[in-house]
């Protein structure tokens, strides 16, 4: 039995409204809403043409190239793929543990990546929605709009992003296509000068991160009931945690809690993830639908990412983030916080934690160590899992006797959130679009729900001119009735 609004009884008799964003980094996704003659929403689906070509792209390549090669899968989170592949190849080369220096430098790189990704998402993509409201005119809903009204906030967003990028550059050796993590460890440690350079701004970054958390809370509480209810769905949540239950994004066990917060599994060795997570398929979507196998496909879907991580962990190891987590959790009244827009709040608590953790690591002498590599007996397969900014990321490889990849399996964060994004859209569609003609403001409500998850597809092409937002209106006979195109300039044109 599909969830409400996933499948209409007589879809051929309904009018089809298609929201089709064509962007170069988020891949090709569209939302279809089917209305009946009375304008009631009868079906709502998020279609994402997940790009599967990367597994073929990887096959036949030597395993030692993987940490560098996979960065080309995605222009948004190359470091996440870099580290997940490095962890998988650690296993292949038999490095059961990393040296202290190697692990700390990889962690520093990952904190830098998460910091810059979260800063970009909040300040560039989402704060405009929250700062100015969903119905605000389009010109405000980008960072330039933020800058015009709050220039200091926008500048902080740019500088936080820049700081994270500098950490990546220094820890990975290059601004892009870094080679820092290699099978079994890292290829360079940090110099005293590099650490001094990064420490120059680390206190300022923590201060900015604190201000960002204060800002998102102020926004959230100004319209508390609305933010708690918008696109809110009850779901299970999965994330990585440390051995002691601490918040963890680099290395730990998998924990899943149900919508009431009751534990489903805990401290699962991620190398065994296939025993706990299965991938379902639906005939209307190219993207798979992962689910917790013990619950089954119908109810076993879950959410990943900041909301899941902050809900699932027992504590943060840094003081400021832990203080914020405790306040956050109180809003669940004993259950996990299920508000979809609370992703933004949780994301900034993570940003604060990353800023604090970076500050701590920069005072750790192990970053300058010389013991960089561990090796053991070569294995025929390897699995690497990390918490990417958007959620849990799985890499699994099998190699042949020549060290060439024979099989590659990846589950990216956005795929883990596939069903949850669909559920949130159904909530919004049922709540805000039912009985109404489509307007730009209402369309934006759907986009706001999707954007909360910070979806990202492995599709980093950049050709200029490929970024219109296209909206098609199709009748019950599948005839195109109307088409709107939103150009990069914000201009909306009727092109039929």
């Amino acid at each position, binding site marked *: 039995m599909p969830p409400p609004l996933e499948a209409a009884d007589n879809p051929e008799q309904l009018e089809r409204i298609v929201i089709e964003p064509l*962007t170069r980094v988020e891949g090709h996704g569209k939302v279809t809403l089917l209305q009946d003659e009375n304008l009631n929403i009868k079906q709502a689906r998020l279609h994402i043409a997940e790009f599967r070509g990367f597994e073929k792209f990887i096959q036949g390549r030597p395993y030692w190239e993987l940490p560098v090669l996979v960065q080309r899968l995605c222009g948004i989170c190359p470091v996440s793929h870099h580290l997940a592949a490095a962890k998988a190849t650690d296993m292949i080369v038999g490095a059961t543990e990393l040296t202290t220096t190697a692990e700390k430098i990889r962690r520093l790189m990952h904190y830098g990546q998460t910091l810059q990704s979260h800063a970009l998402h909040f*300040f560039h993509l989402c704060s405009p929605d929250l700062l100015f409201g969903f119905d605000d005119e389009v010109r405000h*809903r980008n960072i330039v709009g933020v800058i015009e009204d709050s220039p200091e906030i926008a500048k902080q967003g*740019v500088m936080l992003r820049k700081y994270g990028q500098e950490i990546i550059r220094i820890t990975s050796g290059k601004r892009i296509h870094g080679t820092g993590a290699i099978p079994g460890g890292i290829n360079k440690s940090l110099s005293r000068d590099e650490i001094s350079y990064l420490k*120059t701004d680390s206190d300022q970054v923590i201060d900015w991160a604190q201000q960002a958390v204060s800002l998102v809370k102020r926004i959230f509480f100004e319209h508390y009931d609305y933010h708690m209810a918008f696109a809110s769905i009850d779901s299970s949540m999965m994330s990585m945690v440390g051995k002691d239950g601490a918040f963890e994004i680099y290395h730990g066990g998998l924990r899943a809690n149900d919508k009431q917060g009751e534990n489903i599994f805990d401290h699962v060795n991620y190398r065994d993830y296939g025993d706990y997570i299965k991938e379902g398929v639906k005939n209307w979507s190219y993207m798979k639908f992962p689910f917790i196998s013990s619950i089954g496909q119908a109810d076993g879907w879950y959410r990943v990412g900041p909301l899941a991580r902050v809900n699932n962990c027992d504590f943060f190891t840094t003081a400021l983030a832990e203080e914020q987590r405790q306040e956050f959790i109180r809003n669940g009244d004993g259950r996990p916080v299920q508000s979809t827009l609370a992703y933004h709040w949780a994301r900034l608590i993570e940003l604060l934690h990353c800023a604090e953790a970076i500050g701590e690591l920069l005072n750790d002498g192990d970053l300058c160590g010389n013991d960089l590599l561990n090796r053991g007996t070569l294995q025929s397969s390897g699995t690497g899992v990390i918490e990417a900014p958007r959620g849990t990321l799985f890499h699994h490889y099998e190699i042949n006797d020549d060290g060439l990849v024979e099989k590659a399996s990846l589950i990216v964060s956005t795929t883990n959130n596939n069903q949850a994004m669909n559920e949130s859209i159904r909530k919004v569609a049922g709540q805000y679009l039912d009985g109404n003609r489509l307007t730009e403001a209402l369309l934006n409500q759907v986009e706001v729900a999707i954007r909360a998850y910070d979806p990202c597809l492995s599709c980093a092409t*950049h050709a*200029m001119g490929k970024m219109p937002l296209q909206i098609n209106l199709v009748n019950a006979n599948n005839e195109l009735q109307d088409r709107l195109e939103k150009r990069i300039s914000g201009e909306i044109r009727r092109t039929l």
Partner: protein
Amino acid sequence: MAPQTEQSPILVFSYGNPSRGDDALGPALNALLEKNQQATNSPDRVELLTDYQLQIEHAIDLEQRECVVFIDASVCCTPPYEFQLLQAQRDSSYTSHAMSPAAVLAVYRQINQSPPPPCYLLTIRGYEFDLGRDISEQAAGNLQQAFAFITKLLAGDTKHWPAIPAVSNS
């Protein structure tokens, strides 16, 4: 963050994914320029940067420049390439993680409260953008013509560069 070193007066910023067919045109031109940098100009005069895509922090890379050239692949420019002066312009790509070069200029203007340096966009026509593909034969020809154009341009005085937002296509 404060820059680690003094900025070169000219920045050439290429972007694109090297593993996605003709999307690699920007990075490929960057590689050609790196090899040829001694012949085109003093390395201190021109800084070459490359990235997957443009983002908000790239506004900071424009600071203290005499002028900037962005280089990207294009699916719609007139082949073999187009060259134009950019105007700062807000874009509406808020659902995307990538920005247009004009939007980066707009971010610069707002966070610095001053106009950006003269910035140009060199777009090279591409045709195939699938993962794992090499640059197509047709795009490779366009790349060579664009390389010849930018090499000559960088060797000259920036005062002689086009001063109006017009398309130049050799």
